[in-house]
């Protein structure tokens, strides 16, 4: 195992994050704060409790998930796409490193960035609403699993993308709607039975539900089902990445 290479990629990517700190940190914090102002204070004040939790607090896990998922995808996909775009990818291909090490470096950095942002949003949320975390360790574990699995997904996206439009299209047209419709701002139980059934096909529902359980001890779906879903998603992403590196798809001619 070439740990030095993994560390080099990780540090290089983290430098990029800190070099663009305004874009990396301030933007998600400001947009999340706006969500709290609009949905928490303005609209939330007119909504009664949801599943025994004040609406402002209820949306905290969903908002963190929304940001963490989109940031994990964006960071990982950009991280691997950018060297392809500017032509420095040859350096990775000609170095004595395995694909696993490349994935660990890029996905590790992308997951770390999202974790940092996730925790900053958590801290920001404390300024707007009162809430407590019922299962802190489970919350951290869920956050960690989510950042890693979606960073893996982002990595696949970055390898697949042939231009910036393709890089943006999946997050914009598929991921964001899935996250919004995954119960970020509402409980699935609030939907009519038909749409509840449809929502069960949305993988993000399981993530948000599990994450919300870690906060408030209540969930739309059983916690084990949530864990199984995220485990399955991670497994599928790992399988695709393994196949990409085995075949050299979109990497090696």
């Amino acid at each position: 195992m070439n740990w030095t290479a993994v560390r080099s990629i990780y540090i290089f990517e983290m430098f990029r994050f800190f070099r663009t700190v305004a874009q990396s940190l301030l933007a998600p914090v400001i947009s999340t704060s706006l969500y709290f102002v609009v949905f928490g204070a303005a609209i939330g004040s007119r909504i009664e409790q949801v599943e025994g939790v004040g609406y402002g607090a209820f949306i905290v896990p969903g908002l963190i998930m929304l940001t963490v998922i989109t940031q994990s995808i964006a960071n990982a996909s950009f991280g691997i796409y950018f060297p392809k775009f500017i032509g420095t990818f040859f350096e990775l291909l000609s170095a004595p490193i395995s694909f696993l090490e490349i994935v660990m470096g890029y996905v590790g950095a992308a997951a770390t960035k999202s974790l940092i942002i996730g925790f900053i949003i958590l801290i920001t949320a404390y300024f707007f609403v009162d809430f407590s975390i019922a299962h802190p360790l489970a919350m951290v574990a869920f956050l960690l699993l989510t950042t890693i699995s979606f960073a893996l997904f982002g990595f696949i996206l970055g390898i697949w993308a042939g231009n910036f439009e393709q890089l943006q299209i999946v997050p914009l047209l598929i991921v964001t709607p899935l996250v919004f419709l995954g119960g970020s701002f509402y409980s699935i139980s609030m939907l009519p039975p038909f749409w509840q059934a449809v929502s069960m096909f949305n993988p993000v529902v399981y993530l948000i539900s599990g994450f919300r359980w870690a906060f408030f001890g209540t969930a739309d779906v059983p916690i084990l089902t949530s864990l199984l879903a995220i485990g399955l998603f991670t497994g599928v992403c790992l399988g695709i990445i393994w196949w990409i590196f085995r075949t050299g798809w979109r990497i090696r001619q």
Partner: protein
Amino acid sequence: MANIVEITDLRKSYKDGFQALKGVNLGIEEGEILALLGPNGAGKTTLISTVCGITMPTSGTVTVGGHDILHDYRAARSMIGLVPQEINLEPFERVINTVRFSRGLFGKPSDDAAIEKVLRQLSLWDKKDNQIRELSGGMKRRVLIAKALAHDPRVLFLDEPTAGVDVELRKDMWQIVDKLKEDGVTIILTTHYIEEAEAIADRVGVIAHGELLLVEEKTKLMTRMGQKELEVQLTETLTEVPRNLQSDDLALSSDGHALIYTYDTNAERTGITKLLADVAAEGLVLRDVVTRQSSLEDIFVNLVKEDAT
């Protein structure tokens, strides 16, 4: 001297059926500078990319320092440095960080002294904190070389290192290559500039249409394939070669002021003495005599032309 790179029957075909390499065999000796000459699309970059792990070979084997590039890729690649044709660098990254990154990728622990040595060697130390985008084209090329040397490779591939750079910078680059050779680095460079191969290479390989047409020591090649010309400049203007002097080896210059005699330097008799005697017997008065050796460019052009026919 032992071969540090051994390429055996290397073939590369693409999905569309195009054969970029058609069974290349090549041994590269440790410590030498090998120049690969060839026209556009000859397969030079494919050959380098395959050895460096960027392109997968269709068949054949390549070993670097005895390590197979596929089965023992870590050991093989750790011996190789690659300077690509294009200036591919992260524009917002600082020089020192990008060189440090390259060293780390090759599994070498961070070593400030080693990085400083490489940057100083390439006159980049003063620019170490500059962002890449602030550098001139020549400096960027140096950064590419610094990145390729950051892990102390024993074999360095330079893919058209002086393409599009001015003459001064080109000569500067040759000095760098010379210095690397002194340090024991084996260098393989591809180039369009025959002048470049002539100036710095120990051996020259000519590649065209995916085939290696020849590999030979530069001096031997120029001696073996090179012809010499003797230009006998006259005081008078001729309209044709005098009948008594006519032969396949003798021609009249376009302005009629000189007779051009082509001869083989390796032949037992060059025929120069007889020619000069015949010219005197013909009553022609000499103004001057000039000799010219055919250049590597002439040899290259002839080889590629022959391959095309």
